[in-house]
């Protein structure tokens, strides 16, 4: 049980970020993260490696997000975009556009992109979580980025007007 707690704590932040992107709503993401925890805590045994454990947790999270979509029949997120940070109209606009762009991706493309980009999983971990090969993940993440690049051309152009960090990770 303590092992499950530690694993969940280690994954929690990335998990909520992934779920927030997957379902388009922060509070719902928190609730779903708790559902993930319940399933993690109920498991008799955990995968042997750290990488395997993270992949397993995100595999559970992905299934829970899919179940949530099925229940809610929630295929677009215009109405439930996250509340903007205080006084940040531009951020709210960008959040809306980003959420719309994410919603335009197919489920798998969105999942692999979010697991990589906001949860920080490696290609190997994502491959394990989604039952694909790392090469397939590499290809799908890239395709997701190309799609998002099309949808987000305006904010991307705006971002390029300022100094950037490569953010390699």
């Amino acid at each position: 049980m303590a092992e499950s707690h530690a694993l969940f704590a280690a994954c929690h932040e990335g998990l909520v970020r992934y779920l927030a992107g997957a379902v388009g709503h922060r509070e719902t993401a928190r609730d779903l993260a708790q559902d993930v925890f319940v399933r993690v805590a109920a498991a008799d045994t955990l995968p042997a490696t750290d990488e395997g454990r993270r992949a397993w947790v995100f595999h559970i999270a992905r299934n829970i997000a899919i179940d949530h979509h099925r229940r809610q029949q929630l295929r677009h997120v215009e109405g439930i975009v996250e509340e903007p940070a205080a006084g940040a109209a531009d951020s709210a606009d960008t959040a809306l556009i980003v959420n719309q762009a994410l919603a335009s991706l197919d489920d798998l493309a969105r999942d692999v992109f979010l697991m990589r980009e906001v949860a920080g999983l490696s290609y190997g971990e994502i491959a394990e979580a989604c039952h694909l090969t790392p090469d397939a993940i590499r290809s799908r993440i890239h395709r997701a980025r190309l799609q998002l690049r099309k949808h987000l051309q305006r904010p991307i152009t705006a971002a390029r007007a300022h100094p950037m960090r490569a953010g390699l990770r």
Partner: protein
Amino acid sequence: MHDVISAFLDNEPFDPAELSASLATPEGRDLLLDLVALRAVVQPAGLMPVSAPARGRLVYWGVAAAAAVVILASGYVVGRQSAPDSVASQAATTITAPEPTSVFKFEPGKNWTDSTQAGGN
């Protein structure tokens, strides 16, 4: 095509020759910059860590509490060091009770409430 750029950005293994070939084209270089910008666009927009604002407040109060502790501790230490030693030692050794200005003696059987006797007002 160009997915080597994604692998490079994600710190995953990549073929240097393939990356070099990709970046040799204007499209490849433009894509690299766009993907870096995409990362920046996606991160702060709708996908901030949910704990970020709460963490910010915690850090703020943590710093404030630490500053208060430091200020109190500094005040205590400075006060201890700057106070003359004699003050504390005098308080312990030389201060004695004042001499009595009058002495009352209780005499058994005497009526202290009788104002007609000597000494009453």
